[in-house]
């Protein structure tokens, strides 16, 4: 509970102005709640009783009574508006502010951190967990107002009748004790339910993303069973949460009433012995009934603290994560193709955060260099580590051992933002933003339309972009879903080309493009004066044909390098790979001829 209160303390400190405003509103509300009861008493004594006694009344007396009642209600409403609107603003401002912070972290932390955290968890950190943390800021001012009211009433009680006050000092601590016990027991149940909710969501995401596989293999029932099992666990967890809450609420409601009854009993005895007056007894009993409801607001806040702590811890996990990429101070000012060097680079994938598996080594002692303006093809069988190597070249991740050098400078020594101005990567899996075509190509940099069209032409994307309803201003939808895979790939290529990078890295960047279009793209790249050093991951001879030299990778190691012709002669694995289609065609032709001769 102390931790929960500390979290709330953070929230109050960040939004203290608005929070104070809400507490003041809440205090006004509290005062007017008491006042309204007082007003009813006054109206009874001053208006109702005389009227009944005299058997007549005046318009003025009635109007006065009505005005008094309505006036107090109006002030109370002002209090409510102040409290609730301000409390809402506090809650939502904190949510917005922490969402911004979490997203800033996502953008700052290195890719290796992302690879170790499931997407679903990260999304819920920014959404559900932030919400859970600050949810309770809404009833908090009310609870604070109540605390003030409690303190004042406590003093009033003691002044009125210390013995009756003692009854109050028993009941209210009991209410707090029940609240504390509740928080303690609720916390683990709540954590469990939140955890299961996330897991249910992950299964739904995965299952729906894999819908095609599920459907074509007729696995709907099994998937439903998988989802159902976790949903039922969640159900049981929620029932356990509800059970506790269902017990807590009636207790919280009964306690003040029992307190009032105790006051009446004790009060009756003291009245009999002449130690207290009827008036005092009535006001004490009345205070109890007035306080009963607001005290529950404290209960709400305390009851929600476990959720707050869970949410806060998850959000803090993100905010506290360290190990962002460090940057040096070197800036590169040159123009034209850059030299690239890879010196003894090794890399292993770290396992997910909650896994005990050892890291999976992918690259070992990779060394090669690319002179300025040259084009090198990285060739290797499926799963040999090419894509990982590519991510080292543009410093998406840093090598565990060795270094990558651009213009003879270790990438780690370059100033922030420098590398992105020098190198561009088109990866195998393209990502488009929910933005216009132009926005996706320029990514906010100051490139004129002429330059954008030039890049689109080179990527063979000008045709389809021209045919889009709003041309460059057409929005591509979330992750570019309105476009086909090949179109997305071509936009991603244009994005890289438009920046005229000094180092261009293409990771099987035309795999979803039709052969004829691919041929046109490659032809364009070959004849265009890119002014760039190019590294291209390739399988097929047309792409390899772009390259001056080939680096052959197998099992994460560079096993050979040289021109295409040299490697075909020296490296059987390479020859088998690049000639696979031709060999197969020849083999088939032989089979057909054998058939014919037979």
């Amino acid at each position: 509970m102390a931790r929960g209160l500390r979290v709330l303390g953070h929230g109050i400190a960040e939004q203290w102005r608005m929070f104070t405003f809400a507490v003041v509103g809440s205090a006004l509300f509290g005062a007017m709640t008491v006042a309204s009861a007082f007003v009813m008493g006054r109206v009874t004594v001053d208006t109702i009783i005389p009227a009944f006694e005299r058997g007549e009344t005046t318009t003025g007396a009635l109007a006065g009574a009505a005005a008094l009642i309505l006036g107090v209600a109006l002030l109370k409403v002002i209090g409510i508006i102040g409290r609730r609107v301000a409390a809402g603003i506090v809650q939502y401002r904190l949510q917005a502010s922490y969402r911004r912070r979490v997203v800033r972290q996502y953008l700052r932390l290195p890719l290796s951190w992302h690879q170790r955290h499931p997407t679903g968890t990260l999304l819920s950190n920014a959404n559900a967990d932030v919400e859970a943390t600050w949810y309770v800021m809404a009833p908090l001012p009310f609870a604070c107002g109540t605390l003030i009211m409690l303190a004042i009433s406590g003093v009033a009680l003691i002044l009125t009748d210390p013995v009756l006050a003692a009854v109050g000092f028993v009941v209210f601590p009991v209410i707090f004790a029940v609240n504390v016990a509740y928080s303690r027991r609720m916390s683990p149940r709540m954590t469990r339910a939140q955890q299961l909710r996330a897991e249910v969501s992950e299964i739904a995401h995965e299952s729906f993303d894999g819908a095609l596989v599920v459907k074509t293999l007729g696995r709907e029932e099994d998937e439903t069973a998988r989802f159902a099992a976790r949903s039922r666990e969640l159900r049981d967890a929620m029932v356990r949460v509800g059970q506790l809450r269902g017990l807590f609420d009636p207790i919280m409601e009964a306690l003040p009433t029992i307190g009032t009854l105790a006051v009446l009993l004790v009060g009756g005895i003291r009245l009999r012995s002449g130690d207290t007056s009827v008036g005092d007894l009535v006001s004490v009993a009345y205070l109890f009934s007035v306080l009963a409801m607001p005290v529950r607001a404290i209960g709400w806040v305390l009851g929600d603290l476990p959720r707050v702590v869970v949410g806060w811890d998850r959000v803090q996990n993100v905010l506290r994560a360290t190990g962002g990429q460090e940057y040096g101070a070197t800036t590169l000012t040159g123009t034209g193709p850059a030299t690239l060097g890879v010196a003894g680079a090794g890399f292993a994938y770290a396992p997910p955060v909650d896994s005990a598996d050892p890291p999976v080594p992918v690259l070992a002692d990779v060394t090669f260099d690319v002179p300025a303006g040259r084009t090198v093809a990285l060739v290797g069988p499926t799963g040999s580590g090419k894509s990982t190597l590519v991510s080292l070249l543009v410093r998406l991740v840093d090598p565990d051992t060795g270094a990558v050098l651009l213009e003879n400078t270790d990438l780690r020594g370059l100033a922030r933002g420098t590398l992105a101005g020098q190198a561009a990567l088109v990866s195998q899996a393209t990502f488009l933003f929910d933005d216009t075509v132009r926005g996706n190509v320029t990514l906010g940099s100051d490139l004129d339309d002429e330059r954008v069209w030039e890049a689109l032409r080179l990527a063979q994307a000008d045709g389809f972009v021209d045919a889009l309803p709003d041309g460059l201003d057409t929005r591509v939808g979330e992750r570019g879903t309105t476009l086909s895979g090949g179109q997305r790939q071509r936009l991603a290529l244009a994005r890289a080309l438009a920046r005229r990078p000094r180092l261009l890295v293409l990771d099987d960047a035309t795999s979803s493009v039709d052969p004829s279009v691919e041929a046109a793209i490659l032809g364009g790249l070959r004849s265009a004066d890119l002014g760039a050093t190019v590294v291209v991951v390739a399988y097929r001879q047309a792409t390899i044909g772009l390259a001056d030299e080939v680096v052959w990778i197998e099992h994460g190691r560079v096993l050979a390098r040289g021109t295409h012709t040299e490697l075909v002669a020296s490296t059987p694995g390479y020859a088998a790979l690049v000639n696979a289609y031709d060999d197969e065609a020849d083999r088939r032709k032989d089979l057909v001829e054998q058939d014919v001769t037979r």
Partner: protein
Amino acid sequence: MTRMAAQPLETDDALTLARAGREEGAIATLRRGLRLVPELRRGLGVTLLFGLIATAGRVVVPLAVQQTLDRGLLSAEGPDLGLLSWIVGGCTVAVLATAVAAYLLNYRLFKTTETALAALRIRAFRRVHDLSMLHQQAQRRGSLVSRVTSDVDQMSVFMQWGGILIVISAGQLLLATVVMAVFSWQLTLLVWVCFLPLALILPVLQRRLARAYGTVRERVGDLLGAVSESVVGAQTVRAYAVEDRTAERIDGAIDRHYRSAVHAQKTTVLVFTSGELIAALANAAVVVVGVLLGVGGGLTAGELVAFLFLVTLFVAPVQVASEALSEAQNALASFRRVLDVVDAAPDVADPVDGRELPPGPLGVRFDAVTFRYPNANRAALVDVDLELRPRSRVAVVGETGSGKTTFAKLLTRLMDPTSGRVLVGGVPLTEVTFGSLRRRVVMVPQDGFLFDESVADNVRYGRPGATDEEVTAAFGALGLGDWLAGLPEGVGTAVGQRGEALSVGERQLIAVARAYIADPDVLVLDEATSAVDPATEVRLTRALDSLTRGRTTLVIAHRLSTAEAADEILVVDAGRVVQRGPHAELVTQEGPYARLHASWIAQRRA
């Protein structure tokens, strides 16, 4: 309604079309909910009984306390301690009984609703898998996920925090009215008249609330979409150093969400305070009219004071209920969204009394098949007739967008043709049970989606119960033994979320093994090896070729290497089959295939 739902659902809003476009009232939603989720009714009688006791306690206990004050303490003869202890004792018992009843009410209600919600969630999940929208429109997936997750969660939260308040408040309102009427029917009428305006404007306010919260939900969706760019697009963001720009874009979505949430909060306060003001109005009116009545001799002072006390018992639940109503709006909107899913008729349905496919090798026939995607300008396939002999190997080639993939989707009945029929083994697909169809006809899609499990578990999706040895043997038979041996833990290697621990090509290898182990009679490969290196691809194709001799195979490819080996090639252009025949024949003819082949050769040879 069924007619509407039977049409292909192609947008998110299409699901709401199941309600025929009209706005559904709260009662109608609840009725639909009771029909679709019968679990909600379980044990309702007993629960309501506890509800009655708990509600009665909430009215009776304060009344009794009030009476104690009046009669036991403030009576002219001084406090009667005997009576006082008796009343206090009785009241304590009543308070405890109320608490126990309230606990039982809460517990039973939570249990019933959670059970019902879990059942609803599972049913909705199952139904989503029947909707073709799921695989046709990837962009709608998020919305479908939210219907089985956050929407159900929203209802569950509401039931635990607000639902009971509404139930109890309604009862309390009723009971307070009855007791008030015992004192004075005129004043009771007056109180109700005062609340009449509230009852009249409440629907208007509710609509405003619904709109305000509708906007909030929309903005939450935008927010999630924006935030996901920083996670899913992590690589691109870093490669282009557009962290600041991305942050700005996300900030925009966060701000818009913030503004809509504050606006909704203000609207809620409006509703709440209008209840407060009207309560004061009722009090003032009761005082004025009560005094006038009393002066006329129709009421005593004591009765009027008691009545004023009763008004507070009446007002409290009105305020609680009007506040909980905003949450109820949220929960109802969620409830509708989930019910819409459960209510939606699957556009491709498992036939009732369907037939099994005949045993033995299966041929395929397309009979004047035309297919048009909903809202598309032109048909994806136009009037296609074709015959695949049993055990033949047919390749479909053509440019992107020519309609190749549509063949695969129709043959596996992911969609039904707009007109014409698809027959497998002589049986129209619409008459074949899903069980038989999925067992005998299997497709390997281009996106070899993997589940976050081991390699073996993923392959087992093709044949549940296959042993690790069988899985290993399958990779061996496909010529992938070496590749498998290179994985850190063989078939036990974890593939990561969506298979992301492996390269795209490796994922495709597993997807092929998954289909292979299912041992289907018709195998459909939709660019299934597009990201695999040529040597592996050729090895795999060759292995499949010999292994699939007993099956009918449809291969969709943009690399022509696989086409060359097929018995027959179909060349598709703009939804029509423009050329067909074996490779040797087509390659010598003037036509689209010769052109495709020439560019393929050029690309292969450089």
